[in-house]
C-alpha cells in the first residue's frame, strides 16, 4: 500500500494545495484541521506535515512532540507563515535546533512544490 502522509493545518487552502501535490506523486494523504484530530488518526502515518500556529500559538511544536512519542520514527515537517513571534525568531539554523523542535524539516509558507517533493522523497526514502 502507498505510504500515508498526514497533513495538519487550520487553513483549508494549504491542505488542498499540498494534498494535490502529494497525491500526484502517488502517496495516500489524510487531512486534519487541528492537532487532536491528527493524533486520533487510526492509521500510523509515515510522515506528518503540520502548520506551526493553529489554535494555540505553539500547537505545531506540541503536535511534533506528540507525534514523536506516539509514532516513534515518523518524520515531521513543520511549516509556518510567520517564523517569529514578538521579536523572538524561532527559525531553526542547525540540525540541533530542528531536533529540539522534534522536526525533520522546517519551511516558510508557501512551500515551493519542488522543495516539498524533494524533502518528502528524502525523508521517506
Amino acid at each position, binding site marked *: 500500500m502507498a505510504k500515508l502522509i498526514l497533513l495538519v493545518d487550520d487553513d483549508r487552502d*494549504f491542505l488542498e494545495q499540498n494534498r494535490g501535490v502529494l497525491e500526484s506523486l502517488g502517496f495516500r494523504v489524510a487531512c486534519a484541521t487541528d492537532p487532536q484530530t491528527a493524533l486520533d488518526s487510526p492509521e500510523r502515518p509515515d510522515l506528518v506535515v503540520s502548520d506551526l500556529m493553529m489554535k494555540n500559538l505553539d500547537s505545531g511544536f506540541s503536535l511534533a512532540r506528540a507525534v514523536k512519542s506516539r509514532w516513534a520514527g515518523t518524520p515531521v515537517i513543520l511549516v509556518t507563515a510567520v517564523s517569529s513571534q514578538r521579536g523572538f525568531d524561532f527559525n531553526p539554523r542547525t540540525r540541533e535546533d530542528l531536533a529540539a523542535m522534534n522536526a525533520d524539516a522546517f519551511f516558510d509558507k*508557501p512551500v515551493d512544490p519542488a522543495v516539498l517533493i524533494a524533502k518528502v522523497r528524502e525523508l521517506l526514502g
Partner: protein
Amino acid sequence: MSGEAVRILVVDDELGVREGCRKILTAEGYEPTVAEDGQAGWEAFQARPGYSVLLVDLMMPRMTGLELMKRVREADEDVLPIIITAHATIDTAVEGTKQGAYSYIPKPFTPDELLLAIKNGLERRALTIEARRLREERERRLLEVAAERSKSNTIIKCMTDGILVINTEQLVVLRNDAATRILPGTQTVPFPLASLACAEVTSLIDEVLNSASGPTIMSREVTLAESTYMVNVSQVIEPGGETSGAVAVFRDITALKKLETAKSMFVSMVAHEVKNPIAAAEGWLNLVQGGLSRQDPQEERRMIERALIRLRTLRTLVTELLNITAIETGNFTLRRSPVEVGKLAAEAVEANRDKSREKNIQLTLTGAGGGQSLADRDALLMVLSNLIDNAIKYTPDGGHVGVHVAKDGLFVKVTVKDDGIGMTPAEKDKIFDEFYRAKNDFTANVPGTGLGLSLVKRLTEMHHGRVSVDSSPGDGSEFTLYLPLS
C-alpha cells in the same frame, strides 16, 4: 528722610510756651501744630494723624498730658513723646517713662535745649523704626523659608514617583512615601543603603556614587513585586565639583510595559493575518505555474479563483485595519445626516443577496421602517452589511438569515438572526475583539479577517448606539443593534 516737613504736635496750656515753640520749630523747618490742652491735643491728633513728635505738658485741664500720651501711643507707637513740665519730679518722670516718654525738658528751656531734645528724639525714633523694619523683614523671610521648605517637603512627600537621597557615606538620608511603598522597610532615615532589600537598586546607586567621570546619570528597569519601575539615579554635584551623594527616582512604568506588550502582540497578529492569505494565494499560483493543474483549464481557473478569494480577504483586512486605526486616532469623522434605517437595511440585504443565493440561504427583511437615525450613511451601511455577511458566513447551506427593523422606545432596533452554528459563551465574550475568530471544523472553511465585528462595535458606539449578541452552540445567533432615533 523725605522732603516732607517733620510734624510736631505741641500741647501746653501756657500760651507763651505754645507760641514760643511754634516760632522756634517753624524757624527750624519743622511743621508744628499747637493745642491748648489734652483734649484739644487729642482732637488735633485724630483730625490729622502722622506726627513724629508730641511735645506735651503734664498738668493741663480737661485731659492730662499722661492721658494724652497714652492715647496717642496706642494709636501710633511711632510718635515720640517729649514731656515739657515745670513740675519735674522723680514720680512724674517715672510715670512719664512708663507711658513711653522719650525725655524731659524742664521749663523754662532755651530754644537750643528744645531743638537738641527734638533732634535726639528724632534720631532715636528713626533708629527704632529701622530696627523694627529689619526685624519684621527678617521674620517675613523666616516665614517664607519655612513655607518654601514645607512646600518642597509636601511636594516630595506627595509625589507618585519614589525618591531616595543617598549621601556619600552610603546612608539613605531622605525617602518619600512612594519610595517606602515601592521598597518596603521600617527603617527611619538615615539608614544604610545596604539595608534596602533590592540588590539591583543598591548596586546601581553604588555605581553612580563611585563614578569618577563627572556628573553621572544611570537608568535601569527594575521589577519589584508585580510592577516595573524605571529607576533613574543621578549624582548630586556640589558647586565645588565634588560628589555629595545621589538621588534615585522610581517611576512606575508597568502600564507602559503592558501597552508595549499589547502593541507587539498586535503587530505579530497582524503580520500573521496578512502573511497567511498571501502565502495561501501564492501557493495556488505556484501550482498553476508549476503545471500541477495538469494543464486542465477548469482546474487552473479553480486555483486562480481560490487565490483571488484570499487576496480579496486580504484587501478587506487592510481596509478594515485602516478604518480601525482611523477610529482609534480620532481621524474617522462621521458625516451624519438623517438616515432611514429600514431603507439602509434593505440596501445591505440586497448587497448580500448573491452570497445568500450561493449558499441557498433564505435571506429576509421584515418590520416596518423603524425610523430615522442621525448617522453616517456609509459607516452604517458597513455595520449592517457586516452583520448580514457574518450571519451568512456562519450559517450552513440551506439555512435562514432574517433581518428585522423596528422602533423600540427612543431607538431603532435592528436584529440579524440566523439558524447557523451559534457560539459558546466563551466565544460570545470575544466575538467583538480584534482578530478573534471562532475556530472549529465549520469556521475553518470560512474566510474572514477577524476585524469585521470589531469594526461593527466601534462604528455603532460612534453613533451612540449599542450592539450585542445572543447565541448558543447549534441554536444560531441573534445580533441586536440599537441606534438612537433622530
